[in-house]
Structures are given as C-alpha cells and as structure tokens.
C-alpha cells in the first residue's frame, strides 16, 4: 500500500517536471493558447499550430529577449 503511494507520488512528481520542461521550452505553448482561446477568444479566428508558432517567434525576437 505504502509502495503504491510512493510510486504514485513519484509518477506525479515526474509528470510535473515533464510539464514544467515543456512549458519552459515553449513546447506546450500551442496547447495553452487553444485553451485560452476557448475561454477568451470573443470570436477571434483560432490559429493553427504552424501559424501560432510563426507568430510567437516574430513577437519574441522583435524585442529584447536575451541579455548580456
């Protein structure tokens, strides 16, 4: 019983780390956008994955994004 809980806790922890890494590197950005669009879009067109990726890059590299 205790072992099961330990395994379950370890799985949850690993899943959180995995989610964190995906969020940090931008891998999960599109999924976030889709959820946000469903909540707040007010009828705006939903971008597909490729369009969203390109738009994000344009924005990110139009301002100071990396420091010295």
């Amino acid at each position: 019983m205790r072992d099961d809980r330990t395994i379950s806790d370890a799985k949850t922890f690993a899943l959180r780390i995995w989610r964190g890494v995906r969020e940090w590197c931008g891998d999960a950005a599109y999924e976030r956008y889709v959820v946000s669009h469903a909540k707040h879009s007010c009828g705006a067109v939903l971008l597909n994955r490729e369009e969203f990726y390109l738009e994000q890059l344009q924005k990110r590299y139009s301002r100071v994004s990396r420091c010295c």
Partner: protein
Amino acid sequence: MKFLAAAAWIAVALGGAVALGKIALYRGEAISATWFVVAAVCCYLVAYRLYSAFIAAKLLALDDTRATPAERLDDGRDFVPTNKWVLFGHHFAAIAGPGPLVGPTLAAQFGYLPGTLWLIAGCAFAGCVQDFIILFCSIRRDGKTLGEMARDEVSKRGGFIAQIAVLAIMVILLGVVALVIVNALKSSPWATFTLAMTIPIALLLGLYLRFLRPGRVLEASVIGVALVMFAVVAGQWVADSPAWAHVFTFSGVALAFILMAYGFAASALPVWLLLAPRDYLSAFIKAGAIFSLAAGILIVRPEVHMPALTKFIDGTGPVFAGKIFPFCFITIACGAISGFHSLISSGTTPKMIQREGHARFIGYGAMLLESFVGVMAMVAACAMPPGVYFAINSPPAVVGATPEIATATISSWGHHYQVDAPTMATLAHSVGEQSLFNRIGGAPSLAVGMAQIFSNTIGGEKLLSIWYHFAIMFEALFILTVLDAGTRVGRFMVQELGSRVWKPFGRTSWLPGVVISSALIVGAWGYFLYQGVVDPLGGINSLWPLFGISNQLLAAVALVVATTILLKMGKLRWIWVTLGPMAWLVIITMTASWQKIFDPSPRMGFLSAAKGMAVQIAAGKVPAAKLADTQRLIFNQRLDAVVTAVLATMVLVLLVEALMQWAAILSKRREAVLHESPYVATAWTAEAEGD
C-alpha cells in the same frame, strides 16, 4: 516550531559570516572553493529571506488580491499566466548571458576577493533590487517597457534618452561579445569547426520546426543537442587532419568579418530558419552546462590558487588597465547588477506573472542565481595557477610576444605567478590547442578552468580536450545567440528611429528597409569588433570597460525610474533602497568614464592614448607602412572617448530631470501622478492557478 525556524536562520547567517570571514582573511597558498559556495549560498538565503521580504512588504506592498496583466489580459499569446517555477526558468534563461561568466573571469586579475564580495553584496543590495522593483513597476503598468515607464513617470525626454541609451549599449555589447568569440576561435580549428556546425544544425532544426513538426520544440532540441555534442567530438578529427584543420583555421580579422556576415544573415533571414532554433539549442546547453558546473564544483571542491588580492589593484594589471575602484565594479557587471536585466524585467516576464507576490521569487530570486553563476566563474578562473591565468589573458604588447618572454615576465611578478613555457605548451596540447598565449577575453581561461573541473569529475586527463571544447562551444553558442537576437532587435530599433524621419522605413517587412537597417546595425557593432581585433592591446582593455560603463549607466537609468515611482508612491522613508545603489552606480560610472576619457596614462585614457600615437607620428617614429593603421587607432581612441562622454551625458541629463521632478514633488509644487493600471480584484484561487 517558530523557535526552530529562527535557530535555522541564525545558523545560516552564522555559516555565511564564517565562510565570508574565511575567504576575506585567509592568506595561505590555496583555499577550498567550498568556502565560496557556502558564503554565497548562505548570503543569498539571508538576503532573500530578509531583504527581499522587507522590500516586498514595506516598499512595494505586493498585493496578491490584485489581478496581474496576465490574468486581466490573458490572450494565450502575449499575456499568458505562467507557473512561477516555469516563469523563473524563462526569466533566468533570458537574463543569463555571457556577462556573468566573462566579467568575473577578467576581474580575477584583482584577486578572488574583490570580485567575490561585489558579486555577493552587489546582487543582494543592487542587482536583485533593480530586477525586482522594475518587474513590479512593469506589472502595475500592464507590462510597459523601461523606456515607456521613463517617459510616463520621469519625462518625455527621459523616455527618449532611455531608448537611445539602449541602442548604444546594444551596439557596444554586441561588438564586445563578438570580440570574446573571435579571441576564443582564432587559430583554433576544433573550436571553429564545432561552432560552424551549429549553423547547419540550427538550419536543420528550423526546417524541422517549420515544416515537419511545427512548434515541437522539445523533440527538435533533443535532436539538436545530440548533433552539437557529436560536432564537439568530431572537431577533434578535424583538428587532427592537416587538410581540414587548414580549412577551419582563421585569423582574428577573418573571423570578425565572418561574424559580421553571420549577424547580417541572422537579422535579415526569417526568424524561424536560423535565429529561433539556435536559441532553443543555446537554452538547453546553457542550462545543462551551468548545472554541470555547479555539480562539478561541489564534487571536485577545487582549490583556489589565486591570491585574495593581487598587486594589480593599483591599476597596472595586464588583462585590463584600471584600479580596483571603480573598475572592479565596472568589469563585473551582469553578475552583480546589469542594466540590461531591466529590459527583460519590463519585457515578457511581467506579462506572464500569475500573482504580484511571485515578483519577489522571480525578480529577486533569478538574479541571485545569476550571481551564483558569476561566483562559479570566479572559482573556475581562480582555480588554475595564477601564472597560467595571466599567460592566457595577457596581450603580447604587455607581457611579451614569445612564450619564453611572456612566461619570464609573468614569473617576475612574484612567487604566486610562476609559470614556464613548457607548462603552457603541455596544457595547450592537453586541451587540443596549438597555443594558449594571448587568448584574451576571458572565454578560453574560463574554458580551461571549467574543463579541469569537469575532467576531474568525469573522464580525467583523457577527456580534458573534449571538455575544453565543450566549454568553448557552450560560451560561443550563447554569445552567438546574444549576437543574432541582439542584431535583430537593434535592426527593429533602427527602423523605429528611422520611421520618425521617413515612415516607410519602419515597415519591418519592407526588404530595402530590412537590408539597410541590418547593415547599419551590423556595421556599427562590427566597427567596434574590428577595432578590438586590430588593437595592439587586444581590444578587451578598451572595449570591456566601455561595455561595463554603458551597462551600469543603463542600470542607473532603471534605478532613477524606480526611485521616481517609489517617491510618487509615497515611500520616501524607504527610498534609500533604490537611491543607495543608484548613487553608487552614478559614482562608479562617472568616475570610470572620466578616467577612461582623461587619464594621462595611454593604457588607460582614450585621449592620452590618441595623443601618444599622434606625438609619435609627428616625431616621425612611425614607419610609413604603419602610418594608416596608427591613424585609424587614433581615430578609434577618440571615438571611444566620444561614445563614453555621450552616454555619461545622457544619463546625467536624465538624472537632472528626475532630481527636478523629485524636488517639485517633495516641495508639493507638483502632484505625484502615478501611471498605474487601476486595481482589479483577482478572480483566481490558489487551486485554480495550479499553486
């Protein structure tokens, strides 16, 4: 329970005090790096627990009931509520550049003590404070930039000055970091091949992410990192093959022009093709290398051989000229305080923060971690024998052109600095290089230090050359990322400024505008790079202080803005929190600017260096073949003097504007109008936001 917590914090504080005392007072031959780690970590913990909490509660009154811009304006694109740990990672990846690695490595010429103390105290009382408060101010203003806040809260002129200062600093920064790469790669086919390979790898990833698997950053980065690691190993085969080694061996001047061509291409090409995939690669390798260095230092616990203070605190150092005051505080910029961070704190981060309370962890905390990177760089640089450190970092014009003369000069400085030519030849051979003399700029000596720590952890002597080139690749890769991302942002700034004269120039998709603005920005930093490459003193002597001065001047601008906002918030009682570091930065930058322009020593003062060369020409002591070169050097010295004077003047103008406004507010002649967004209560619960 409360008693136990208090006892634990007292133990941490005492641990920090003992470790600091040890590194400050120890005068033996070598001291364990463990003391540096303990001193830094304990001081960071105490600073975070006490000082940042004080700022959060008394000064800023962070309010978790107030909806942040990420909540109110959530669109999944610009404004994205983000978990605080993930945002900490984003923010740290954005602020951590080559500065905290190179600056402490160069400042090691004063000994380990001054730089280490400034890294720890500077970040706790200045750098973290700036990052934290500017982040808070930007959150309260829907993510406005530093320039916009300067315009709204100080004056219109203040906003314009901030904009021009950012562009000028960007140009100097790019020129200097490019010089660091050139000095690391010149005459090194292994390092040049490895870095060159990152370009086709980045192009491959760009195509993969654009056409095959759009936006799948993680899997593309894993493939890319594996390919880069293979390139590091393959570089040895290239270096061992005379024909291929010849192909990848370049002089400093040739590398400078290659880098300019690269910067132009990265700025003008579509961002998805080269710039973005390189940034992904760089972010993963940067995180991995910094983590590995920390682990390596903890496992190996190397001994620091550099004296606590060297005789070069008097300003006669071979790495760069200048006394400990103010040049220790100018040379170590980013690890203690960096004006550039204020652009990140008022950029993406405030648009992604979930709660105001997270600003303390992200703004103050990430800067503490950056400072720790600086302390690790200091340990890596000081762990090698001091004679070796100076042999790598000293220009031939100062110590002599041949290995025998250079080592004899360095050894004559005292028993700490003993080094000989065979030792240097053996070291160069074991790291896979022809020579390690005259490798100024900090990157090669840091790579030697890192490689020794890594190889003592894994692989031993056999892997020293692989680890050295891994370290060089790591430094060069993320310097290139700064170079291409900075060139592109600089291009947008030039287009924005140009559009004030002629509107169509501002259209970022108009090809002639793109080409002209890219050429202008590359030409500007390329000029500084070229003058550094041909400088007989190696360029770092004049350009790194110029970069440090400009970066710290930008920090002064950020702290002027922060102080103005705090005054308007009615926090006069606590105004010393920003006023203190601001005054310190104004003092060190103005002193350094004055000395760099007017000092009578030709190695130190730009104008006296120019005058010295002009006198030599007038006396007919310069051969006809070198006349044009000498005249160009004179022009460069005068240009550096003008740039320094213009930057210092701009900051003084902003300071005077702010002082006038502070006086008007304090004497009630002017109403204190804050430009904050109105209060909106949060609709989130801790559970909903994933806390």
